[in-house]
């Protein structure tokens, strides 16, 4: 695996990070300047998603050449790597992030609400329907897809024992050098890994997209800030 690929992967990641930071500052600016302007916010949120789409498309190409680099990226800290799930962050993490904002705010508003002095709804951060939709998306994402992908990855990681590792062991002990078969098996495995990563990326993207649909815009902004923050660390 040429180190050129690794460099490319790294720069691809770095580039995306920069784009994210730019998006984030735009979003924050829009939020402070005109929090009521839903169109702008929607547009920015969509932009963020588009950029993520671009990123995963790009890294798909790169991963075809060297998948393992993304699963244990050298450009991330080891702590970041320890949090990775199939070369990125867990989609279920997004849901946790959705529930975080407003937590402390809600408590402080509660007293006002109970005294009846507060006019606006306490639950403005997440409406009823949103909660329902987010919840059903969560159960779908976690129970079906995320678990399936985890299982798939596990299977892949175990499968390696059957072919390449045994062959490597055999080959090394017998001939002292890797033969073509091993090479092929490893390539095959790499391709499978890419497939899993692509699926995981797709899941992350879809989850984001659906969440965006479900969340009202300024809520989305908040969530996005945070998920950016996390993704910066995670990826």
């Amino acid at each position, binding site marked *: 695996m040429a180190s050129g690929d690794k460099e490319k992967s790294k720069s691809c990641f770095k580039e995306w990070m920069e784009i994210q930071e730019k998006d984030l500052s735009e979003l924050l600016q829009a939020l402070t300047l005109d929090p009521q302007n839903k169109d702008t916010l929607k547009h920015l949120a969509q932009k963020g998603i588009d950029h993520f789409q671009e990123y995963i498309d790009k890294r798909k190409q790169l991963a075809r050449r060297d998948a393992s680099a993304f699963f244990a990226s050298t450009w991330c800290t080891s702590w970041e790597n320890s949090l990775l799930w199939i070369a990125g962050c867990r989609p279920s993490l997004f849901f946790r992030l959705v529930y975080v904002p407003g937590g*402390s705010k809600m408590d402080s508003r509660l007293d006002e609400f109970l005294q009846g002095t507060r006019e606006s709804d*306490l639950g403005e951060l997440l409406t009823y329907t949103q909660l329902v939709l987010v919840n059903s998306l969560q159960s779908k994402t976690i129970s079906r897809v995320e678990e399936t992908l985890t299982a798939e990855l596990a299977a892949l990681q175990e499968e390696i024992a059957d072919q390449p590792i045994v062959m490597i062991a055999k080959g090394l002990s017998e001939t002292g050098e890797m033969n073509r078969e091993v090479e092929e098996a490893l390539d095959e495995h790499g391709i499978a890994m890419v497939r899993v990563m692509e699926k995981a990326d797709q899941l992350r993207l879809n989850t984001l997209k659906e969440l965006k649909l479900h969340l009202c815009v300024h809520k989305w902004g908040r969530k996005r800030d945070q998920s950016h923050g996390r993704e910066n660390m995670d990826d």
Partner: protein
Amino acid sequence: MAEICYGVVSESDASSNPCEASSRAARRRRMDIRRCKFVSGVAPPAPESPENSEKRKKAASRTTSSASHELENALQCSGSSDEEKFPPSQKKSTKFRASSSSNVPEGLRELPKYGLASVCGRRRDMEDAVSVHPLFCRRIRDATAQLHYFGVYDGHGCSHVATKCRERMHELVKEEVENMEEWKTAMERSFVRMDKEVVAWSREGGVGVSNCRCELQTPESEAVGSTAVVAIVSADKIVVANCGDSRAVLCRDGKAIPLSVDHKPDRPDELSRIQEAGGRVIYWDGPRVLGVLAMSRALGDNYLKPYVSCDPEVTITDRTVEDECLILASDGLWDVVSNDTACGVARMCLRRERAAAAAERAGPEAAALDKACSDASMLLTKLALARQSTDNVSVVVVNLRLNTEFEACRKLSEVLRKLGVVHWKDLDIGIVRPIPRTSVVTRVVAYMYVGAADAQVLVWVALLVAYEESTTYLIDYHQCRTTSGFRTVHMVTSPSRDGQHALILVGLDEDNFKTWKRQIEMHLGMLEFHITFKHNSQQRKEFVKWHRANQTSLLIMQNAMEDHIRVGIPSCGVANEFMVKIEEKCKRSNNVETGVCLSELIHAKHDDIGSVC
């Protein structure tokens, strides 16, 4: 998985039917349906055990105040009332009837108002289940009683026991309740049957469905269970059966009353029960039965039997007018939100919705209230999530407000009978058919709530509504304040057509007779009842309306005074004589009143600006 439900409303409530005849008929039918033995007695707060509950209730009913005895007596009278007690129904008024009719169309039965929210939250697996079955059963013995079923199940180990409970529990409860002798045994039997079914079902490998995590493998499926808190709500009672650490909390007049007590292994009585059964409670991340399960009772959990029991604790609570709502929730809520806070939130949601509904008459009120319940359940869920609840959160909020015109009429009749002055023949308590339909009636109901069922206010409203049939009145309640020994009632009545006139009534106490008399006379005059004062007994028969006016005037006067004054005045059947007697009684206090005025004058000072303060 999330479930959102708006409770359904009876269709005649929802439709603003322009057809008078049919809406009146529908209302009458509804009234008939809701005929219920309502006792506004005192219900005990949730006790620790069902046995206690029974004892306390007996004690409570023994010590019930004489007033509520009167109420009960009054009700028994009204309960037996029949057609001939009422004059033929007059146009423009719907008679309050307590007669029963058994052939009520099914579709018109009143459905409860509720809302529910159930979310996975921060857990990866959803193990909660919620079931709501309005009108789930009728008792054989008492066909008119409508029972509504609400249940929250919080599974552990896996979701299948909770799911099974959601599917089956209400059916079992139905079977038991239909033939039951008493609530407690019926609930206990259904819980035991549910438990047996679950255990047997998972042993058989789960016929039907088994797409759960544990996949019903034998050792694992033995360690699966669920809590269950089930509330049966009828017209006059709330029966709660609980097993485990989910909880039912009643919100009554702003106060939280738990109707179930969590079964935690370190609860003293539970601890001794477990130890007597030979089990142990081991502290391992909190107290746990055999160091495993953090609750002392549950359905399922076969391997922990008999230490973990499936016997529910049952509480039976009489409903009162002060009841606002019932909250059933899994520990995902109760771990992070206190009973009081939960009640406060639910209450505010219901209140605000009611205010909104009053402001906007166009929308069907009943439907709006259901939204309020849903809002409440969602808000509580979000609060739990915001407070970092790590569990699944399921909340059911049931509106317990007796918010129907029937209840308003019933309450009015109670109050009138309690006062012992009015007989049905004399006083046609009818309700002016409101235009728009809800205005008067809704407000009567609102007074009951706002004014905490203040007898005076209700009677005034009743009278005004009853005697001004020709004009449509909008009656606004302004203030009803009961301070120590002094009662003030302010009312503003505004006839819709001919301008406005205001009425302010001051309750008679020791030293305000003059003011009081002036007001009473003004008020009676306005109602054209002053004939009672103008004519003596020889002439009275010439007046058709005299009798009625006399009775009403008496009633008005009796109500507009403090109890201790009323007791001191000899009773009298004629209004003008009564007024004379009051005057005699107040002569002495008249001097007091003068004295008060004088002292006020003496102590008045000029404020250096231009007026007296």
